[in-house]
């Protein structure tokens, strides 16, 4: 208590002395303002178009036995750009058999205002199945095994090949002059950048193998995550 009184007294004496010497604690002041408006962009990623569907039968013979069809669902509209994309693509193959394959070409679209990069492609399988990523085509092909374990089918998901068309001009009986992925120029989706209002042509291919069982239905899901381009992690 006694100490506080001393401090206050010292402060009063100091102010008094300064005022005598012409120093007064007073000033004019003025102020300016910053008004900030941050209009956030949007990041909206999805499918918009099924471009083309084809299968082994289109090349090897005249029959129409199996069929591979893509459908789009779960529309979502970007409020910023007004564009609509679809969040779910369902690829359904019917009456499949060993050596049959079906390819669908579709677009992955950036309907937002921020560039995106594909950060992650994740394959999800039901219980009892396992996936072995291809060492030759990492991130683009998986071998799917059941619990026996036998190879049931391969799944390919890749950016449209640069050399599209070159490998498809072979006369029936259609045969690739080498591994499909090499001849066709398969490249993984991860790391591909899509600018706003742009699309990435993408293909999915499924080819059932000898040990796929008759009259069975196999399912899988693939999640494709896109991230704002400046936060991409290689």
């Amino acid at each position: 208590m006694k100490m506080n009184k001393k401090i206050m007294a010292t402060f009063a004496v100091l102010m008094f002395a300064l005022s005598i010497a012409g120093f007064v604690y007073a000033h004019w002041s003025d102020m300016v303002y910053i008004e900030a408006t941050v209009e956030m962009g949007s990041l909206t990623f999805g499918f918009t178009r099924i471009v083309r569907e084809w299968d082994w039968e289109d090349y090897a013979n005249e029959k129409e036995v199996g069929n591979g069809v893509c459908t789009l669902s779960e529309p979502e509209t970007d409020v910023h750009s007004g564009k609509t994309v679809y969040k779910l693509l369902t690829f359904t193959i019917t009456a499949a058999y060993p050596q049959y394959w079906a390819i669908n070409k579709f677009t992955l679209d950036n309907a937002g205002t921020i560039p995106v990069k594909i950060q992650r492609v994740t394959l999800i399988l039901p219980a009892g199945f396992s996936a072995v990523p291809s060492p030759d085509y990492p991130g683009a092909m998986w071998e799917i095994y059941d619990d026996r374990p036998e190879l049931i089918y391969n799944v390919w998901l890749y950016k449209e090949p640069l050399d599209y068309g070159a490998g498809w001009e072979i006369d029936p009986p259609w045969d690739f002059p080498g591994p499909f992925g090499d001849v066709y120029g398969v490249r993984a989706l991860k790391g591909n950048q899509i600018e706003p209002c742009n699309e990435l042509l993408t293909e999915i291919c499924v080819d059932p193998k000898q040990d796929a069982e008759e009259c069975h239905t196999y399912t899988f899901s693939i999640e494709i995550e896109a991230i704002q381009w400046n936060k991409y992690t290689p």
Partner: protein
Amino acid sequence: MENKKIGAIALLIAITLSAFGLVYAHWSDMVTIDGVIEMGSLTLSWDWVEPPLCYEFWMDENGQLQPGEFEGKLVGECTAEFVDEIYDIHSDKYGYKKLIISVTNAYPQYYVFTTAKLHNIGTIPIFVYGFEITGEKKDSAGNVVYDLLWYDPDGDWAGELWEDVDGDGTVDPAVDILVINLLIQNAQWPLQIDPCNKEKIEVDMDFKQEAEECHHYSIYITVLGVQWNKLDEVYP
């Protein structure tokens, strides 16, 4: 008290990082592909609707086959039937797995022709590209005497069944005995059958002089089919 310190440190780190432009935040979006692969079925069967038919013939002096038996007698007998019903769950169609041809009281120059329909009750086209033909000769007590060997050097499914007397698994005319002529015919081999389609085939047999009395010949014919797009892997 300890918690407050930890919280203060975390806050301090976050403020420090943000001051340098490092913020753990990003936008991302995700889409999903659902894949559904419905496998078809490859099911070759004998026809569920039309039963097999068995005919007898005898050969006249002009070398022409005549229906029935010589002099109109009822000596031999042949029957044909399908057994082992199967069901294709995919196509919801029925068929049979086995054709049984029974010939009793047969004799040399007795001709038995059987017709039956193959039906593709699956969803995948099939090529019937061949047959596996084996057999046995049994005595009246049911004991196997010899195996039967299929002999068809030109591969047209018009061949012969020989008793493998020396048991070496190959036909040796000097030792083995020809007992039955066998012909399996259709318009063409390999025979393609599309889903829901049927093709009639005929199995013709006639018994040779050396076929032994009171013995029983069992012939097993397996029809070989393959999905039509894999024919080149099994058929020359």
